[in-house]
């Protein structure tokens, strides 16, 4: 799988503008950045997992366990 590049502050700030955050609030953006980086790291860790055993569009949560498994 293609490696996900590290998230730079510049990329983060550009995305923040795109997603409607108040980019004038620099203090808030600075505090938010580590949180978004941590999420980015989690996503990157999941990239390494081959989920091919779950066919696209099937078996996704929420599951219906109405019948006991």
């Amino acid at each position, binding site marked *: 799988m293609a490696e996900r590049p590290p998230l730079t502050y510049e990329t983060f700030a550009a995305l923040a503008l795109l997603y409607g955050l108040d980019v004038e609030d620099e203090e808030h953006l600075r505090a938010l950045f580590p949180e978004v980086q941590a*999420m980015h790291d989690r996503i990157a860790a999941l*990239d390494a997992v081959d989920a091919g055993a779950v066919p696209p569009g099937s078996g996704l*949560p929420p599951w219906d366990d109405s019948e006991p498994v």
Partner: protein
Amino acid sequence: MASVELTRLPLSALAALIERREVSPVEAAEAYIRRIDAAEPRLNAFITRTSDHALRSARQAEAEILRGGYRGALHGVPVGLKDLFNTQGVRTTSGSAIDSDYVPDEDSAVAERLSSAGACLVGKLHMTEMAFDGTSLNRHYGPARNPWDTERMAGGSSSGAGVAVASGMAALTVGTDTGGSVRVPAGLCGVTGLKPTFGLISRYGATPLSWSMDHVGPLARSVLDAALALNALAGHDPRDPGSLRAPPRDYAAGLEESGAEGAAGVRIGVVDSFGWDLTEPDVKSAFEAAMAQLETLGADARSAATPDLALVNAAGSVVQTAEAAALHRERVLGRGREMDQAIRRRIESGLFISAEAYLHAQRVRAMLRRELLSTLEQVDLLASPTTAIAAPRLEQQHVTIQGRQVHIREGLLRITRVFSAVGLPAISIPCGFTEDALPVGLQLVGRPLSEPLLLRVAHAYQTSTEWHTQHPDV
């Protein structure tokens, strides 16, 4: 019966007294209201008290019972609801200042069911803002305090639900659990907390955090009490798209008869992959003693091979945060400054999750669930501590375990979040105390819709131990 004794009774015992007309619902409601008057200033378990409402319901229950119209175990019993369940005419804040004046015009499904069962609502319970935190801190309403040590956290997000049951301010409470929010406060406050199979209890009218991970569950003083609550709360509801069409069951049936025998022959797999090295030694000792006790009762305890639980946690975190951002985008972008800033940032981080990353996390989650279900073909239940740490101090950010610094959110949620992510039923029951006299929880997990087995084994444990009968001196 003395007022304080009434508020310490398990729901099942109080219900028996009410059914036999030895205690009236009004007497019970008044005892609980007095108890709340005395303890609430030290604990802060409630956001809104509803004493008048409780007394009205109690008078109605009393009249019905005197006419021979006893409805069942919850009739005339004082209960509390996490403050994200809509209650008609009673404000519902979701722990947020933004919703401090929100008064719903209809009941949530849980409020409806409790009302139909004849329960008496004593108040809306403390929670962390938008249910997105495992502590019991709330910038707007102050911290909920642990009744075993009021300088410590009660766990969250259903903080008040744990505090109220532990301290005798409600005989039963109902919370929600997206990453551990029923089990964590149950564990830290020393009560029983049940997160049923995903969809078993309707979420209609409850403020959502993550539609594919939100569960509803009761907190109570015993497994039997939790089973009685589940009888009243479970059932299909077409208004909740995740609601199961599972057939009705009597979850309390046979529990008392099976007693300590209920664990005999049950294969229990010990979950090892959550990180014993990042678990407090006192928690580990209490857990090991609990497993030894279950073996004494005839359970077959063994090690269980589970998938990489860190991956399940990562997938769950991505999904939960993306769904929270989708649900609450307008709130964080429009009124974010009025929120707890840590929770605002947590939700906003979900805006940066792409559709591709969300869907991949869902597929990983589904795959790991298959692996866990495969493990649950080799054993009947899984077991772990509920949390890796006991209740932290209110101001605490990190805890040091065996020389390593662990953030308290990780210590509180690392083990429970896994089983929310895969939708399996899980229960936390008290299994001991640390050297600092703080409760420790034992978590048991089963296959989908295996609540009868889960409850039977947990009840067997409680039949042979007294941890769940201890009361904090507050």
